[in-house]
């Protein structure tokens, strides 16, 4: 079966339809909502496989199907679908892992009263994630990018009645939004310069040669190439979404969500979207490589951030006691690995690690979910223990996942992808720091996973909840087994001896070579894995007579360091004290400006108006009105005086007339009017 780029929209459309069905289903329609979600996911998986077949026929081609979304003024906004091996591999992974996690959720969420809502949100997430993968336009990608953020928000806060979950959801949304603003600015800049956000558009796309040459050839402030500036802004989005330093703080808190959510969104797929984004715009990130005069290459920054995150996450994971927090910091660390691989120039290794990580980390999270479900939502390692005997399937699959994550040689997929990353770092000419950091993280990873698995499954049960736990139903263990099989088998598609994935992903045929091509590095890394596992076993594996309140051996050895790591290096407190306070301060400033300054000014004006009114009234009363009053009083007085003459006696009047006559006559006669 084949699926061309034109019909790629069907892949996200199916889960979207399921989400619509789920949103309209009442609480009672559990079967309908879950059935629609799972059926849609399986359908999307089949379609994705078809897309993969199509893409693999011509791995070097970026097949796109563009169309007009809408017009705005003179501008026509075009979006489209893109089919290349990157899209196809990611889509297959997302739909496959997604299907398994959906099925697992049937069991895990069985008792939740908002069961239908859960599947609605999960489907919405899947639709957005798949949309992000198939988008040929960075605008459409951004739309889906934000929608996965929304789904993540809704699912982290799924148990919204818990204040911690509500706070974690908000924190996740806001922290990623900080990165998204960088991404937004990058896209705006790119849009402004290129007039389009289509990745591939028959030569006119932003990731095609003409655009890249123009972008690399323009210099902006600070001597950066324009492509570096835009690339780094886009990378900001990836930092937020993929939990990279310094925006990693939201990811551990996101574990407040139901465990299947953690597995799907915060381990396997969404958090990897940042890695996918950088891989998608890789031509842009690479465009400044040929320039010698720039202060820094975009990819160097990516490598640096990735290296810091890889080490940081692994170190913090050592001192966490919550199963899901350990896994979350492990995810942070592994995402750092992927970024590191991108930075050192091998996006293929990064995507290889991404795909492998998705399977084994989903496995680990679902395993953790199985444990948590069995132990009645007890997820503190110190209060578990001894579950291995009662939960054999979970234990076995969790062990497979652990070994894959730790990179136990040859059999497990994580080994091969990690080797690919380390080799790429080894080959990086700029600096050997990423390689050293990567190797250090290998030891730490092996160590904290040993600590985790011994804490959960070995020893004696330390609480009643752990003692009473029993294996879950097949609907939960089934997905675990399938994922475990993948965690073992899938690594072989990308070994140096048979670089099938590498050849098909990059579109450039990679020649097979012996796995012993660089024996030194491989032996070193195997040695480090063994060291880490051995050290973990030495510290935790043989502990006896521990109970829930025993102090961790590491905390006994180095209490200060352990406390700092357990407190996650104080990032949350630091941000609260700086940015949080700044935020509050600016808000107070804005509010104070309104209340104190602008409102006072208006009040002042109003007072001035009022005052002039008072003045006016006084003037009216005292000067104008009183004047009028006087005048009218005088007139009235005069009138009254005269009215006395109006006696009503006709003879009086006549006498007056006569008198007047005599007076006039005398005046005429004597006054001498001639």
């Amino acid at each position, binding site marked *: 079966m084949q699926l061309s780029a034109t019909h790629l929209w069907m892949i996200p459309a199916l889960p979207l339809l399921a989400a619509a069905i789920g949103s309209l289903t009442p609480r009672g329609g559990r079967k309908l909502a879950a059935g629609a979600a799972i059926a849609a996911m399986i359908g999307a998986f089949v379609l994705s496989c078809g897309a993969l077949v199509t893409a693999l026929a011509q791995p070097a081609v970026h097949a796109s199907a563009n169309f007009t979304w809408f017009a705005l003024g003179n501008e026509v906004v075009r979006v489209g679908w893109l089919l290349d091996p990157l899209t196809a591999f990611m889509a297959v992974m997302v739909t496959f892992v997604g299907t398994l996690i959906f099925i697992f959720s049937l069991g895990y969420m069985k008792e939740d009263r908002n069961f239908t809502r859960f599947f609605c949100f999960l489907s919405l997430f899947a639709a957005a994630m798949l949309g992000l993968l198939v988008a040929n336009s960075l605008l459409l990608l951004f739309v889906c990018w934000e929608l996965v953020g929304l789904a993540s928000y809704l699912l982290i806060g799924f148990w919204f009645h818990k*204040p911690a979950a509500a706070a974690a959801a908000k924190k996740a949304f*806001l922290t990623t939004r900080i990165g998204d603003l960088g991404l937004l600015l990058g896209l705006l800049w790119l849009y402004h310069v290129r007039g389009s956000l289509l990745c591939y558009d028959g030569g006119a796309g932003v990731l095609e040669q003409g655009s890249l040459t123009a972008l690399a050839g323009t210099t902006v402030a600070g001597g950066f190439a324009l492509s570096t500036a835009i690339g780094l802004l886009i990378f900001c989005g990836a930092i937020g979404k993929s939990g990279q330093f310094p925006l990693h703080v939201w990811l551990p808190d996101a574990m407040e969500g139901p465990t299947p959510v953690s597995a799907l969104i915060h381990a396997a797929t969404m958090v990897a979207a940042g890695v996918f984004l950088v891989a998608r715009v890789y031509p842009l990130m690479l465009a400044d490589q040929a320039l010698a005069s720039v202060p820094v290459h975009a990819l160097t920054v990516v490598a640096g951030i990735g290296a810091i995150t890889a080490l940081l996450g692994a170190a913090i994971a050592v001192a966490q006691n919550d199963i899901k927090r350990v896994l979350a910091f492990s995810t942070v660390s592994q995402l750092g690995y992927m970024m590191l691989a991108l930075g050192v120039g091998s996006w293929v290794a990064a995507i290889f690690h991404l795909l492998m990580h998705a399977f084994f980390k989903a496995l680990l999270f679902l395993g953790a979910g199985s444990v948590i479900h069995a132990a009645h939502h007890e997820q503190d390692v110190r209060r578990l223990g001894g579950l291995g005997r009662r939960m054999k399937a979970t234990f076995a699959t969790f062990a497979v996942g652990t070994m894959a994550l730790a990179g136990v040689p040859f059999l497990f997929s994580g080994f091969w992808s990690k080797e690919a990353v380390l080799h790429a770092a080894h080959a990086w000419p700029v600096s050997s720091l990423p390689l050293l950091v990567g190797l250090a993280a290998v030891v730490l990873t092996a160590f904290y996973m040993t600590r985790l698995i011994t804490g959960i499954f070995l020893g004696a049960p330390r609480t009643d909840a752990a003692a009473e736990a029993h294996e879950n139903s097949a609907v939960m263990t089934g997905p675990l087994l399938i994922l475990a099989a993948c965690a073992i088998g899938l690594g072989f598609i990308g070994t140096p001896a048979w670089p099938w994935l590498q050849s098909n992903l990059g579109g450039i045929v990679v020649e097979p070579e012996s796995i012993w091509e660089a024996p030194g590095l491989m032996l070193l890394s195997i040695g480090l894995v063994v060291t880490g596992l051995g050290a973990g076993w030495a510290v935790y594996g043989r502990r006896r007579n521990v109970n829930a309140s025993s102090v961790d051996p590491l905390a006994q050895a180095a209490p200060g360091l352990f406390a700092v790591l357990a407190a996650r290096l104080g990032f949350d407190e630091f941000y609260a004290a700086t940015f949080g306070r700044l935020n509050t301060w600016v808000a107070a400033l804005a509010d104070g400006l*309104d209340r104190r300054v602008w409102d006072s000014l208006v009040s002042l004006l109003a007072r001035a108006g009022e005052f002039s009114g008072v003045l006016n009234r006084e003037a009216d009363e005292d000067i104008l009105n009183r004047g009028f009053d006087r005048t009218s009083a005088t007139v009235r007085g005069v009138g009254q005086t005269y009215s006395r003459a109006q006696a009503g006696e006709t003879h009086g009047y006549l006498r007056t007339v006569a008198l007047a006559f005599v007076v006039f006559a005398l005046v005429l006669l004597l006054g001498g009017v001639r």
Partner: protein
Amino acid sequence: MNLPLLSLLVFMPWAGAVLLAVLRNARPAVARTVTLAFSLSTLALGWAVLLRFDPAVTGFQLVERRPWIEALNIHYFLGLDGLSLLLVLLTGLIAPAGLLASWRDARSPRMFGALFLVLQGSALGVFLALDFFHWFLFWELSLVPVFFLIKLWGGENAGRAAYQFVIYTIGGSAFLLLGFAAVFAATGTVDFGQLATLAADGTLTARLAHLGNFWPQVVFVGVLLGVAVKVPLYPFHTWLPPAYAEAPTGVSMFLTGVMSKMGVYAFLRILWPIFPAPLHAAAPCLLVLALAGVVFGAFAAMRQTDLKRMVAYSSVNHVSYCLLALFAVSAASGPGGPAAGAASAALGGALLQMFNHGLSAAALFCCVGVLESRAGGRSGLDDFGGVRAAAPVFAGLCGIALFSSLGLPGLNGFVGEFFIFRGVFGLAPWTAAIACLGLFATAYFLLTFWQRVFHGPRAGAAVGNWPDLRGVELAPLVPLVALMLLLGVLPQLLTGLFNPLVAHWVAALAHP
């Protein structure tokens, strides 16, 4: 059939008001129904207008022009273009929704309805009048019903808020009137079209300068002040939070959904075409003010403990985006004109934003109104908790409105905001970068709202019997939310109305 559609549009609500005034003994239910029916006339007539409207024509359509006061060269002159039509449709949506949101308010529905219809008719008059004389009549007339609606049906401090609102706005309008008196003295006409023609070739400035050298500036500042208070432009916004917060729910919806658009409309219809050169000169300064509105509006909202004030501040923030786009375009206009793509994105985005903000802000006020009515008048941020558990449908609808307001892609708010940013970035990059702070702050306070009110354990007023939305409470929210979803995916339903107009504006921007 050649009905005077535009006159009908304006005067139907007024006819309803007169009818309500006559029906002295109407029962409340009858009064409400009559009000709603006449309020819906706008939507029906707007639809009829839409069918006859040709988007390709950039001039005015369905024009009605009759001499009115011939001695003063004043005409009764109605007409509409894409911009007016957009706002007429918005009014047609928001006004009935506002009425439905205040449906349960028991106090004298006949009086309320009559005043509301007068308000609606006046707003439509502002959007359709093309001669300053009666445009200004409509503009001022809209204040009278608002004053009474806020004062008589409003909250605790409604008296003060109503006085402040009306006097502040009238104060601004006085300058506007003064400015136009000078314009009339200089040119002998107050026809918007004729004035624009006069302005385009510099005659207007020359004639005003004839009155005295400083007159062109004085007139511009006067008109600017009048419009800036109405929008409001930072820092002339301090009347807004108390007015919106104290007004009854339906009136708050109308104020934020329609009335704030009257200001932006006046910018586009008056300042933009009639005073292009002074606006261009003042634009850098105004750009900073709009930016302050975006950033400080959002940050100030974070500090509000009253939900209505918070939403009111978000309104300041959102309307400032429109102004940001206008000023950025105006600042970049001039010989050769601004980058056409960026300018048309900014202007188109601003028009979309006007409509979208109308929907989302009205819906948010409606939701706060529901909360308030359930909680017996309380609307503090800390008065609630866990409402989502009690009322999932309400929470869902409110959540969509909220995410639309914070610009989540897939909902209507995003498209407008994205293209405003795209345009402003092309014209004034640093402004766009700083305005991003506003985006973050908006998300921050809206999510705080959502978290405190809807999440967590049930607390405060949400404890006890708290029914979900029922019957008539759903009526205003459902259409608004449905449109948010629809327009988020298909913005062309709106952009199709005004695209040629925007293109025409952009082409006209390259003034000397």
